[in-house]
């Protein structure tokens, strides 16, 4: 009887300690790079953290890009933020420490986090039905764009200027409509580890977005 009470007390204390440890938020360093197969840009703008440089050096042989350019970097707690991409494109970045969101006694290992990482164009569709609606809208806009481009060589003077403005506006609209989720991934990472998360066109393409994600222990 006494032993049972002791056992219950110990288990309750263990759960409480686990919950307390999980409430201490961890931080993340997010560095957004543009990888290009052309050009000879260097990665000198990288933060001096040796772990980050080592991670990029490690993956260079795996990725097809010759140059890497830092486009934005941020420190953040679990949550979401906006980051600037190339050509003033904006991205929404969300990093979640899953075990902090849903405390669970079944954590992977001490010092290991389960991280959900999302990167999407700003204003991306949130569900499949919205994506479907937008794909129809994009098809309409593309038709209009082709039509206006076809008319451009014949336009002269103020008409040509007006046509160009219209094309630019359509291109912007098309970009917004095509905004989509780029990365949606969940993985485990050790505290202090840098994981390289990236996206590109199937087959490689000539450009890719590369994110160097480093987890930092709470209180550091």
């Amino acid at each position, binding site marked *: *009887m006494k032993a*049972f009470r002791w056992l219950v007390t110990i288990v309750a204390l263990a759960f409480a300690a686990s919950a307390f440890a999980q409430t201490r938020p961890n931080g993340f360093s997010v560095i957004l790079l*543009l990888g290009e197969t052309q050009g000879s840009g260097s990665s000198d703008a990288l933060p001096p953290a040796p772990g980050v440089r*080592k*991670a990029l*050096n*490690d*993956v260079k*042989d*795996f*990725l097809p890009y010759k140059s890497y350019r830092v486009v934005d970097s941020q420190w953040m707690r679990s949550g979401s933020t906006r980051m600037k*991409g*190339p*050509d003033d*494109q904006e991205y929404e970045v969300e990093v979640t420490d*899953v075990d902090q969101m*849903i405390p*669970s*006694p*079944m954590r992977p290992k001490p010092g290991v986090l*389960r991280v*959900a*990482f999302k990167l999407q164009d700003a204003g991306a569709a949130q569900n*499949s039905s919205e*994506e*479907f609606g937008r*794909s129809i809208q994009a098809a309409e806009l593309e038709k209009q764009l082709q039509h206006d481009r076809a008319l451009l060589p014949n336009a002269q003077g103020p008409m040509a200027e007006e046509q160009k403005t219209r094309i630019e506006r359509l291109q912007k609209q098309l970009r917004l409509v*095509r905004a*989509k989720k*780029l*990365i*949606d*991934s*969940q*993985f485990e*990472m050790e505290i202090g*580890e*840098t*994981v*390289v*998360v*990236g*996206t*590109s*066109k*199937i*087959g490689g*393409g000539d*450009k*890719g*977005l590369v994110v160097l994600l480093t987890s930092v222990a709470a209180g550091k």
Partner: protein
Amino acid sequence: MKDLKQRLVDGDPIAHEPAMSDADVQAMRRAIVVEARRQPARSPMSSWPRPLALAAALAACLVLGISIGVRISDNAPVIVPSRASRPASDVRRQLQMTSPGGTRIIWTFHQEFDL
């Protein structure tokens, strides 16, 4: 004429047996009392922890279910390579690999990716 009920009563062998002697009755009673005393007393443990054990089992199932649910979430691409369900216009594939230096790479390919 005897009816069926009367015939059954008349034919019951126990009704014609002599009653048990007082000594036999006492012997039977003693045997029952002795056997009853030999049984272990019911401990308080056996009475109150039943609801607690049930609650603990339910809590354990709940924790297990949530943990499995979190791990096998739809958003978690755990199969490598995986193919997310997207509209036909945006096919996605995800690869996870580890470099010789130990750095992990998680790469998502899009059919339509434009920078």
